[in-house]
């Protein structure tokens, strides 16, 4: 069986291979901005990152494809879940760049269209297509061009055996008239992948032989089936590890079943066969039913533990955490340990920063609160004699600004700077500097600046080791003077563990909210996205951080993020909002730029 499929695949893949147009290729990296905006504009979730799915697909399917087709060729189909919209890294399937470009746009639009999850793969793609065509005439025009190109790419049906030709014809009908095909005719071999559609996800009734689908007698079994389907759908929502590690999706088994056309109904209760099949599929082991297997899978894949399984903590200072899946703020999920840093060696400002210090003192002296005397005002406490004489001498009736007004250019502002001290800051950013060194220098110069402007400020650092140990280091509290002891603490910062950003922000919010100034700025200095060594990563960490910032804003604070993570544009707009963060392209410039940035945002 496998060999047959392999040969089929080999042929198919080879056929595909000859139909690529590398000269006309379009890379996702070149059009990720329009794709992202289109995705969000047509209703896509803001928290979903746009990613090249090529490598991921490769990991998920490579063994399978290699095994079946003996080829390294990937079939890259788009896919969206709670974490990311995965699109092919490069599209070169169509003969013109414009068409390849439009395929990206089409896939983004298709992924953005939300439909009830219970629909089958076949129905969902057709219904989403129909919706888009109805609502967006521009996309409809694109779609018509793409369908024509796709059908050309798929080749003539005349060469196919009757059953495949019938199936292929149904696919073409579905492309031409979305919504017209409810069941694909069964064929011995799998059809070519449909580039215009999203990847099949869970096992769907569309792939079952039609006679079984319509069999009234098997109603009982079909109800249990739908129940299982739901369970698997939930399973796909589990946060996944990012990066190139093993990335398994339960839908892969669909590919297997789809292409191999094994009789699932007969096989699914036979553990031996399952084990056999699982072995064949290398690391992949799953079935549509059987809780046992699913449990085994969750262990072998080292998927993060469900957040709901964690009991609340009950000692120490507790903070809540936001679970975006249940949309609840779970109380007492994190324990914050404040580390006062008492026994430090006091130290002076490091010599190499003295010149910067002098410069900043000059630059920022202007921001000191001063009383200003404004001449030629329409109102004021004193008379502007000059203006009056000018008026008399010119006989200019319209000029009537004869007053001098005194105004306080006040800065009633407090700022809390929260620095990320996770282990990732150990990374080197030049020949002789790590991120942590850059952060240390930034803290020094920032403190010097704010001492000049007389704004109230506090400095904190944070790291975390799972939810039981969120460490907040007090470098300088609001009521402390900026002294050699504080400098000693800044000098002594070191990196450790992870970045549980939400908890640190909530803690900082509590401190800053107690300040009585009119303006309160929460400045976050970081080098990456929120993560921790448990379920706190990916979308979960991002959503929790976002929630923590919404809470901070509700308390009247203004959060702002300064990051050196070059990939931050993928997630910071969602967390902080479009205009509340900045990415420093050269980390080594951070110490010099931070004070200027501060001046800009508090102007």
């Amino acid at each position, binding site marked *: 069986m496998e060999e047959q499929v392999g040969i089929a695949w080999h042929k198919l893949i080879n056929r595909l291979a000859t139909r690529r147009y590398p000269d006309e290729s379009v890379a996702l990296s070149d059009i990720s901005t*329009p794709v992202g905006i289109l995705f*969000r*504009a047509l*209703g896509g979730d803001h928290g979903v990152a746009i990613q090249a799915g090529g490598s991921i697909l490769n990991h998920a399917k490579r063994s399978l494809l290699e095994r079946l087709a003996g080829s390294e060729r990937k079939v890259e189909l788009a896919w969206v879940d709670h974490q990311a919209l995965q699109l092919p890294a490069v599209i070169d399937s169509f003969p013109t760049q414009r068409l390849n470009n439009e395929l990206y746009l089409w896939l983004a639009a298709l992924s953005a269209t939300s439909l009830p999850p219970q629909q089958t793969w076949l129905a969902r793609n057709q219904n989403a297509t129909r919706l888009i065509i109805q609502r967006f005439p*521009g996309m409809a025009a694109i779609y018509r061009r793409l369908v024509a190109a796709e059908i050309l790419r798929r080749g003539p049906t005349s060469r196919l055996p009757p059953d495949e030709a019938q199936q292929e014809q149904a696919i073409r009908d579905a492309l031409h008239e979305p919504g017209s095909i409810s069941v694909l005719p069964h064929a011995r071999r799998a059809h070519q992948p449909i580039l215009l559609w999203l990847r099949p996800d869970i096992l769907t009734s569309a792939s079952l032989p039609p006679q079984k689908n319509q069999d009234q007698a098997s109603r009982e079994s079909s109800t249990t089936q739908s129940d299982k389907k739901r369970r698997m759908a939930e399973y796909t929502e589990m946060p996944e590890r990012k990066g190139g590690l093993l990335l398994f999706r339960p839908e892969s088994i669909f590919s297997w079943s789809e292409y191999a056309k094994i009789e699932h109904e007969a096989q699914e209760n036979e553990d031996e066969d399952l084990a056999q099949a699982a072995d064949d599929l290398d690391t992949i082991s799953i079935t549509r039913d059987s809780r046992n297997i699913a449990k085994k899978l969750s262990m072998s894949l080292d998927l993060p533990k469900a957040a709901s399984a964690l009991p609340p903590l009950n000692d120490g200072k507790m903070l809540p955490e936001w679970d975006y899946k249940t949309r609840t703020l779970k109380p007492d999920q994190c324990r914050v340990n404040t580390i006062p840093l008492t026994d430090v060696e006091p130290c002076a400002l490091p010599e190499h920063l003295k010149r910067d210090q002098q410069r900043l003192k000059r630059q920022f002296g202007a921001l000191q609160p001063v009383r200003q005397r404004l001449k030629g005002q329409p*109102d004021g406490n004193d008379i502007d004699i000059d203006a009056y004489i000018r008026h008399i001498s010119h006989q200019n009736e319209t000029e009537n600004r004869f007053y001098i007004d005194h105004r306080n250019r006040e800065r009633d502002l407090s700022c809390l700077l929260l620095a990320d001290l996770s282990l990732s800051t150990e990374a080197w950013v030049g020949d002789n500097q790590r991120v942590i060194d850059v952060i240390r220098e930034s803290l020094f110069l920032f403190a010097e600046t704010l001492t000049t402007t007389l704004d109230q400020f506090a400095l904190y650092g944070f790291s975390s080791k799972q939810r039981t140990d969120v460490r907040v280091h007090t470098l300088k509290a609001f009521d402390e003077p900026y002294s050699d002891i504080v400098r000693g603490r800044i000098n002594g910062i070191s990196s450790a563990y992870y970045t549980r950003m939400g908890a640190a922000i909530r803690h900082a919010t509590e401190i800053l909210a107690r300040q009585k100034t009119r303006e309160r*700025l929460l400045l976050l200095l970081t080098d990456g996205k929120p993560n921790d060594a448990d379920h706190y990563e990916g979308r979960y960490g991002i959503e929790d951080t976002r929630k923590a910032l919404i809470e901070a804003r509700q308390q009247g604070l203004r959060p702002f993020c300064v990051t050196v993570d070059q990939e931050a544009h993928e997630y910071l707009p*969602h967390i902080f*909002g479009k205009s*509340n963060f900045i990415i420093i392209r050269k980390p080594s410039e951070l110490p010099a730029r931070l004070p200027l940035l501060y001046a800009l945002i508090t102007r």
Partner: protein
Amino acid sequence: MPITAIAQNLKAPKVFPSYAPADDEVMIFEHAYRNCLPVLIKGPTGCGKTRFVEYMAARLGLALHTVSCHDDLSASDLVGRHLVNASGTYWTDGPLTRAVRHGGICYLDEVVEARKDTTVVLHALSDDRRILPIDRTGEVLEAPPEFMLVVSYNPGYQHLLKGLKPSTRQRFISLAFGFPEPAREIDIVITETGVDHTIAKHLVTLANALRSTANHDLEEAPGTRLIVDAAKLIATGCPPQTACRAAIVECLSDEPEITKALMVVVNAIFAHS
């Protein structure tokens, strides 16, 4: 006396500004007017706050004194000041004083933009005293029943500490405005510009698509005003894509990469002819 009767008793306005009510805001406003209560309207840019006030002024037959607030607007810009001419000094009323003296609606647009001392002037006017003390002249004006104070602001602007003080806020009857429902917005676009239904529908679809990228890709969502402007250009023969670029896309962002991407959204909605 029923609310409608008030409107009928007052003299009918010459030109009625068109306004499509979203909900019960017209009724609330009339009740507030009847009870001599000031009104605060909050909502994003271009969602129809000013038009609503114009409409209500016309409906109630009141004069409308509009002040667009800016960060240099002081209390005496509202109340009035002494001016000098050849014969000496003389007093001129500001728009607020004028409205209090002669009746009518004083509308302070984007009130949070004004200097802090400005809002304090409003306090005695906006509670049950309804008086306007003028320090410079020693007058204390009592507001007639035909005087109404209306302020508006945009909560979306994230100014460092530009919000209304709770003590100011809690004196007002508050109306929250959002963008109109698609069907209503289509009607608005058609009424304002006379474009055909298809164009109006596409423009509204575009506006809502762009609104869903706000805060992530855009600083602020496009208001109804922007699509009305685009529709006006289309109505006089400008090609839709060009109109959308000039009236909507370029108004929303200055970054070439973003405007280019926004045009992709425009092209997703308007098919090239």
